[in-house]
């Protein structure tokens, strides 16, 4: 019992930190500082996820949020700018939309099962099968891995494809970073072959 109260207190404090950080990120004009704070935000989220028993998610969140995302932000900031030039001002339409959405969601929580309720419908259907039968059907201890790679393995294939898409995007938009790569809009770009008489294709842009 005492352990649970302790857990709730830690989660509450983490939440408060995260909310303060998010508001701070919204108001900061130094983008470098915001990127670093975002890394901390992700770490706190990872901590929170560990509190909620989602160790795999926490691991990934830490690696992605505090690792890759921060590196990406810093890399992009190095290539663009590190200061937001516009002063922070409030846009009331945005504020209105966000408040309305938030209130709607909060209203939706009224019929939700309580946090941690073991009798919630989510714990009664499908999930017990994974917990009870995956040992016999698959035989590895980490149920998250069983579900991820086998029961819902097709989603994971889709996920891998999403990552591949990101690489296609980075190559097409930024080039591969090869020393010989020229920027995408080069004018001396040779007109390619296949369509027969494509020579006139580029005329218009001259």
């Amino acid at each position, binding site marked *: 019992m005492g352990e649970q109260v302790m857990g709730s207190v830690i989660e509450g404090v983490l939440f408060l930190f995260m909310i303060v950080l998010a508001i701070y990120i919204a108001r900061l004009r130094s983008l470098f500082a915001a990127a670093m704070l975002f890394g901390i935000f992700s770490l706190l989220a990872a901590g929170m996820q560990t509190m909620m028993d989602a160790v795999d998610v926490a*691991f*990934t969140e830490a*690696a992605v949020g505090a690792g890759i995302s921060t590196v990406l932000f810093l*890399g*992009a900031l190095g290539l663009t700018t590190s200061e937001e030039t516009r002063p922070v001002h409030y846009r009331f339409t945005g504020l209105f939309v966000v408040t309305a959405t938030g209130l709607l969601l909060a209203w939706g929580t009224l019929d939700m099962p309580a946090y941690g309720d073991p009798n919630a419908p989510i714990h009664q259907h499908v999930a017990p099968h994974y917990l009870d039968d995956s040992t016999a059907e698959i035989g590895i201890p980490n149920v998250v891995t069983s579900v991820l*790679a086998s029961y819902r393995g097709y989603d994971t294939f889709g996920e891998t494809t999403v990552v591949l898409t990101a690489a296609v995007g980075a190559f097409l938009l*930024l080039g591969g970073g*090869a020393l010989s790569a020229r920027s995408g809009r080069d004018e001396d770009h040779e007109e390619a072959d296949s369509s027969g008489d494509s020579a006139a294709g580029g005329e218009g842009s001259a």
Partner: protein
Amino acid sequence: MSELTAQEETTPIKMRVRETVILRVVGKALVPFILLFALYVQFHGDYGPGGGFQAGVIFAAGLILHALIFGLDELRTAIPLVVVEIGIALGALLYGGVGVASMLLGSEFLDYGVLDGHDPAHGQHLGILLVELGVGITVTFVMVAIFYAFAGRSRQ
């Protein structure tokens, strides 16, 4: 290595770290362990937290750390762009290939149970190992690709 210094100045994250001896020494010592840890995460995912994606991210982080300390070009000689592209494709194809294999063995896509004719649970285990490896390979090379794309951009 010295002829690269001029280019290195323009790396996006303007790090003048190449001159610091401590960083180079520590980096050199650290990178193999990061890569080793990635392999542990990759293959221990069945028993504890972790798996292909996390392993891929950590592996790529090790490579990127190496590039930040010792220069982009060293990594690019070790892993040329073509290799990165082929690696991305092979990882995804390994995942899909396991699925196709189970199709050819007469079952549905990604039914690893048929990979071992006698013991479906063992087949499942093997299948999970292979697809996680596929994820790991693709994620590693994609992260390196994105790093190349961003880091290479500053030189143009």
